[in-house]
């Protein structure tokens, strides 16, 4: 029994961390219409930076400043935002497909760099030497995981309510105006490229925070965790949930992560031994079919965006 509960805690923690990243993506795509094909890079930037800032000094690793944990996490978030700012400045004035390609390129370049810069990011072996916050105080690992889940849940709720507030604010209306018709927004004296950059940076910072939480939960991050395919998984979660709807984004994350975990467990236990080598392939095929199927039959997602009238016209 305790095994099932502790697994449920573990599962919920990871799903909630991914949900934070999906919320960040939803802010960019669902609310502003920005196509970010490089989620893995911003998630990874936050993850690596958090470990660098909050970890202990290790050979072949930059950082190890041992910062107070909240500062390390915020630092990771800011560094992800800085990366997004640079990328956004270069690409946001371009057409959508250029943005999709260049952000995808960022993710490939990011993975390449952290995999090869062995004197800087630990290379393919990844980064270690991180002490999880408060772990020394709580001896029981189960209670510690429960506490970590609480931390993640608090961050998830905070991000959710923050985004809901932003979306309902005049700034949120402006984002949707730019998404729907950039020229019209411009003719009303708004500056679409500046606003888009802002939304891109904020969304990427949220992804970076998710990455920071992910790395601190495992006290470890490696290039294997930030493969460009992570971007596809996170996109699948948003598409299933419903772009533009934050509750949907969270629900989509739990559905996809649940399906991913369950299929992995099922294949590991019931598939013939020869097929188990291909577990990953089968799971990615399933994800692929989910993406294509949703777009064909329910493009608005399971929980579509609720269109609101901000002011009743009289």
């Amino acid at each position: 029994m305790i095994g099932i509960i502790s697994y449920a805690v573990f599962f919920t923690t990871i799903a909630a961390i991914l949900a934070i990243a999906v919320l960040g993506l939803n802010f960019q795509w669902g609310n502003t219409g920005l196509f970010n094909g490089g989620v893995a890079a911003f998630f990874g930037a936050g993850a690596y930076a958090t470990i660098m800032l909050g970890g202990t000094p290790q050979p072949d690793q930059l950082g190890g400043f041992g910062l107070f944990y909240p500062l390390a996490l915020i630092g990771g978030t800011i560094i992800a935002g800085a990366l997004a700012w640079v990328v956004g400045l270069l690409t946001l004035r371009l057409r959508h497909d250029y943005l999709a390609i260049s952000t995808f390129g960022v993710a490939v370049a990011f993975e390449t760099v952290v995999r090869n810069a062995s004197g800087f990011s630990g290379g393919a072996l990844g980064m270690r030497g991180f002490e999880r916050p408060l772990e020394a105080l709580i001896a029981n690992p189960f209670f510690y995981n429960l506490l970590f889940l609480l931390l993640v849940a608090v961050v998830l709720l905070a991000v959710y309510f923050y985004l809901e507030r932003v979306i309902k604010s005049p700034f949120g209306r402006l984002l949707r105006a730019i998404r729907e018709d950039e020229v019209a927004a411009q003719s009303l004296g708004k500056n679409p490229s500046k606003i888009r950059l802002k939304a891109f940076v904020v969304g990427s910072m949220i992804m970076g925070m998710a990455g920071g939480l992910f790395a601190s939960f495992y006290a470890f991050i490696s290039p294997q965790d930030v493969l460009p395919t992570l971007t596809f998984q996170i996109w699948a979660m948003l598409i299933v949930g419903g772009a533009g709807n934050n509750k949907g984004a969270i629900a989509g994350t739990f559905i996809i992560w649940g399906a991913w975990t369950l299929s992995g467990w099922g294949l590991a236990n019931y598939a013939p031994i020869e097929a188990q080598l291909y577990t990953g392939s089968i799971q990615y095929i399933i994800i692929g079919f989910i993406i294509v199927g949703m777009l064909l039959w329910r493009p608005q997602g399971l929980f579509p965006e609720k269109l609101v009238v901000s002011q009743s016209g009289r």
Partner: protein
Amino acid sequence: MIQSLADGILSGSIISLGAIGLTMVMHTLRFANFSHAELLSLGAYIALVFDGVFSALLPVLSTSLGGLSLTWGLLLAFPVALLITGFSAMIIDRWVFKRIREKGEELSMVFASFGVALIIRNALGLMFGLETQLYSDDIAFAMLLSQDPLLIVKPDQVFVLGLTAVIMVLLHLMLSKTTFGYSLRAVAENPTLAAVSGVDLKRVIATIWILGGGLAAAAGIFYGLTNNISPIMGRDLVLPIFAATIVGGIGSIYGAVLGGFIVGLAANMALLILPSGYSPAVPFLIILAVLLVRPNGLFGEARS
């Protein structure tokens, strides 16, 4: 240096072939197709299958052409793979992209291409195994063209370059001399206007997929012949091919060819100063550089 130049031209020719189809699709259908590079893997594996079938039916075919590691069986499998890959591309469009296009969501096609890429790549891995394969285990001896500066070229590479040149000349003749070439360029320029002027839009789009898929298959087979075949070759080639289309300017076929050579040369030249592990990031740097200097590529025109 000279060696890098030679290797760059070779990989550039492969990237060019892949980029031609992608640039046509991106321009006429207005979406970044992330699954295009998977057509290269698809073509490479189809050729592998038919090479095996032909050689099993007629064992004579498993002998290689003089000096090359290319067998007669593979040479016969080449056009078959081009055709099947081309038609597969068309069918994928009919089943997936066309339906989404008709709903009017341009960017949804980009997500759909993520999904299609995942399906093709992992299905190939499931069917053929995750390990790398070769068309032939025979060793084709490299020719030492020059001792100093060192220049080693494999006969396969010369063959691939020659065949690429032939394919490109044929393509050029088709684009500039045939009615289909005119209608293709008209559609690329302005689909609505082309349709009004009596161009059969559906037929042109189908042909673009067949042509683009066929060229991608050729690129995939050439890649397999000069490197190896693996289910992840599409993953490794997607960014260089995108870079080639952006360098050339989306929609410009000649631009894509030149872009391919620029990307191939730059990636190989970069190996002179960078450790080889970093080479996957080079196309991204090229994309950034080009977008900074000429946001519409070297040959592209601004388009709303």
